[in-house]
């Protein structure tokens, strides 16, 4: 920060002007704090902002890239897909990250690359006897029409539906891929992260939720959907349908900066792609 205002201790300030000067100083200080808290970095590096689902992978790749190219500053900010797309449209960030498909009006103004794909897994407690559901059943559960496990081959207990909050990329991907225009029931619990959903489903024998396939662990059970097991093989084969793209986007008709160009190249190159696959994602280029 360059704009540090120092009080002129030796310059005589007219009495009447003292208060306003102090007010101004405090105001400037307040604004500086605000800027420091939420503004983009002004270091001249590359700013990549958007989906919190993509953020950990982008951070990992940025770290590797910067290790090989010291002095290149890449700043990754996780603010959500919509915020990332908006930032790229407005030019606030050079590159936006999205974990949902672009809407037509967005795609008109943005260039995009699919850096990888991520599958959504529908998870239940390991004690739940149910092992698979149809898309229609999942729709019914999250829409609030199916409320008890006995309609699905489970015990006669009420279903605890766990969803994400509106605005998150995972939420909009689930809405788009599963709900297809139907609203998620208001009685669904809402949690702020994949991890929180996993925690609740691991605790509650009657719970059902959806999370990124990459973070499914033995504390929960991922369900087969329309009789297709969620696995990387089935995602790659295109038989498992709950798949969302991870995108990098930037403004159309405006060439990327050399650093932006190089970073996108690195992500799409052999090393970047193999790192993403190692992290549990599926190759992006086979997008149907």
């Amino acid at each position, binding site marked *: 920060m360059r704009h540090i205002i120092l009080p002129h201790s030796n310059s005589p300030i007219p009495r009447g002007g003292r208060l306003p000067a*102090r*007010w101004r100083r*405090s*105001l400037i200080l*307040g604004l500086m704090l605000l800027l420091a808290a939420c503004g983009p970095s002004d270091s001249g590096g590359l700013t990549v902002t958007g989906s*919190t689902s993509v953020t950990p992978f982008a951070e990992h790749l940025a770290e590797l890239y910067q290790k090989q190219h010291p002095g290149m500053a890449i700043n990754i900010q996780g*603010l*959500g*897909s*919509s*915020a990332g797309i*908006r930032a790229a449209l407005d030019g606030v960030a050079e590159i936006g990250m999205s974990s949902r498909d672009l809407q037509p009006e967005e795609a008109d103004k943005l260039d995009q690359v699919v850096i990888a794909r991520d599958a959504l897994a529908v998870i239940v407690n390991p004690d739940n006897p149910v092992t698979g559901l149809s898309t229609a059943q999942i729709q019914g559960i999250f829409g609030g029409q199916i409320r008890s496990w006995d309609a699905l081959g489970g015990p006669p207990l*009420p279903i*605890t539906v766990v969803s994400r*909050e*509106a*605005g*998150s*990329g995972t*939420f*909009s991907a689930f809405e788009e891929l599963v709900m297809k225009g139907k*609203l998620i029931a*208001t*009685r*669904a*619990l*809402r*949690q*702020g992260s994949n991890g*929180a959903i996993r*925690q*609740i489903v691991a*605790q*509650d024998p*009657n*719970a059902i939720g959806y999370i990124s396939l990459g973070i499914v662990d033995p504390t929960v059970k991922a369900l087969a959907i329309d009789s297709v097991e969620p696995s990387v093989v089935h995602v790659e084969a295109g038989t498992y349908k709950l798949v969302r793209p991870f995108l990098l986007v930037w403004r159309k008709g405006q060439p990327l900066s050399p650093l932006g160009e190089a970073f996108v190249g690195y992500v799409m190159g052999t090393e970047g792609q193999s790192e993403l696959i190692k992290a549990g994602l599926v190759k992006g280029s086979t997008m149907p």
Partner: protein
Amino acid sequence: MKERGIGALLLLTALGALIALGLITYFIFQAGVPLIARVGLWEFLSGTHWSPTSKPPQFGILPMIVGSLWLTLGALLIGVPLGLAVAIFMVELAPPRLAVLIRPAIQLLAGIPSVIYGFIGLTLLAPLVRAVFGGPGLSVLTGAIILGFMILPTIIAISEDAMRAVPLAIREGALALVSTHWQVISGVILPTARSGIIAGIILGMGRALGETMAVIMMIGNSLDLPTSPLQPATTLTSNIGLELAYASGPHREALFATGVVLFIFIMILNGLATTIFRRPALSRSST
């Protein structure tokens, strides 16, 4: 010269607090009021559907207002009797050596970060509530129990002060009328200290209403109008905390508008607490 310099510095600091408050107020209202104007105040407050990203979006915060009220009421139901009991014990009954032990414990209770309370609620209390009552476990009840403990230090500290401030003459007068100790407490001490106790309760209420992190973790955050304490719910604060990170456009404005409503709630509560505080305690005991 040095005196004046320090004076000016302190003035600046004091003004800083004022300016911070002013800036906060300005930014919240400036970001939230346009949406309220577009949706309509009544629609916003009484709408039962919140789906900020659907098409068309719906911005009704009634479930959150009700959730906040339920949760705050529940926390008070647990925190007030318990807090008052502790305060009475500390002032009237506790042997000094025990009081020395209890007081720091209560102060420690105030120092525990809310995320820890939330974690305890999520991992210990919620499974217990689920096992005993059924349902998801994350519920108004779970939140209210933990919140009740979170507001204890506020209620205890302020009511204790108020009770200690009761003049000795009044107490002695009551004893001289051959009152038992309990009659003195219930008939003289509590009524005399009433305004301080009520102010403590209102401040505790403000704390309960404003708590965010712990509530997000414990209450389940569903958007139904809560009709039973065993149901999950969403509060004004928890919804802002949950959704703000990803919100943009009208969604973001609606969250700031929720903040405006919350801001007004809290202002009213604080105003009440200050007014009651200022009222002299003695004038109320004459009845």
